């Protein structure tokens, strides 16, 4: 697998660029072609990148960058922007050290802060799904959390920079 470090600029207030998405996926395909779970890697990459691109268009003020890195058997997507810092809802705590972001009939999405990084995790609810008006309608963070092997957010106050980093481990 080749070493990759390619950065794309996404100008906000633009239509979603599926040409750019396809370019990104082609780059990944060309550099992880020998991976035995290539289809799974491309599937997860497609939806992590789709959500990062959607986030760039939906929330940012100014421009964003998405960097794709492949090194040390890790495929990493890093989105940076200078928009407002991420504000997460707090729906509760888990054992005092993790913060529940959302809890619904299907999932519990929660975070754990380590140093300056907020890591996202997800648990599936084992109970039967309740089909009612409380079904969730927000899936962006959930998709990245479930598609990635590691997903974190960090904010650099000095540079007013948001960083979202999602990694897929390629070692298997």
């Amino acid at each position, binding site marked *: 697998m080749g070493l990759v470090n390619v950065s794309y600029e996404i100008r906000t207030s633009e*239509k*979603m660029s*599926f040409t750019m*998405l396809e370019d990104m996926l082609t780059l990944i395909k060309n550099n992880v072609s020998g991976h035995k779970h290539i289809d799974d890697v491309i*599937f997860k990459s*497609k*939806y992590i990148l*789709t*959500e990062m691109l*959607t986030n760039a*268009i*939906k929330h940012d003020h100014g421009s964003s960058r998405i960097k794709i890195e492949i090194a040390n058997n890790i495929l990493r997507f890093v989105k940076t922007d200078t928009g407002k810092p991420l504000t997460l809802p707090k729906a509760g705590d888990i054992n005092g050290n993790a913060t529940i972001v959302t809890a619904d009939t*299907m*999932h519990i999405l929660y975070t754990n802060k380590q140093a300056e990084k907020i890591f996202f995790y997800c648990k*599936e609810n084992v109970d039967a*799904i309740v*089909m*009612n*008006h409380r*079904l*969730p*309608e*927000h*899936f*962006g963070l*959930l*998709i990245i959390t*479930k*598609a990635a092997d590691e997903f974190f957010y960090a904010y650099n106050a000095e540079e007013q920079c948001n960083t979202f980093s999602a990694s897929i481990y390629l070692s298997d």
Partner: protein
Amino acid sequence: MIELIKQEPGYLLADLQIDEANLAVADQFKTELIGLLDNYQRKIVLSLHQVNYIDSSFLGALVAGLKHAIAQKHDIILVGLKKDIRDLLTLIRLDKVFKIYDNYTEATSAL
């Protein structure tokens, strides 16, 4: 965006005629879907066979439509999903929320 293909006493067959189901069209889609539910008061079998790209904004609109249907005691059934879109629904467990079939024939046989 949503073309009505067939109208039956218990259900509608509808076709989503877009390639890219994303933030840009999510609100319009939700309005059209809820409009169909309100106007026809029956289940909708919706084909997504033309959709190649989908994002969380559009999935949110789809679930909002389903919640509207549930409140009316109706349903939204999905058919014609491309493999990676079906896999995405499975990843976030929306395959447990929507009834999903390969095509209209399978879906209407199960109604």
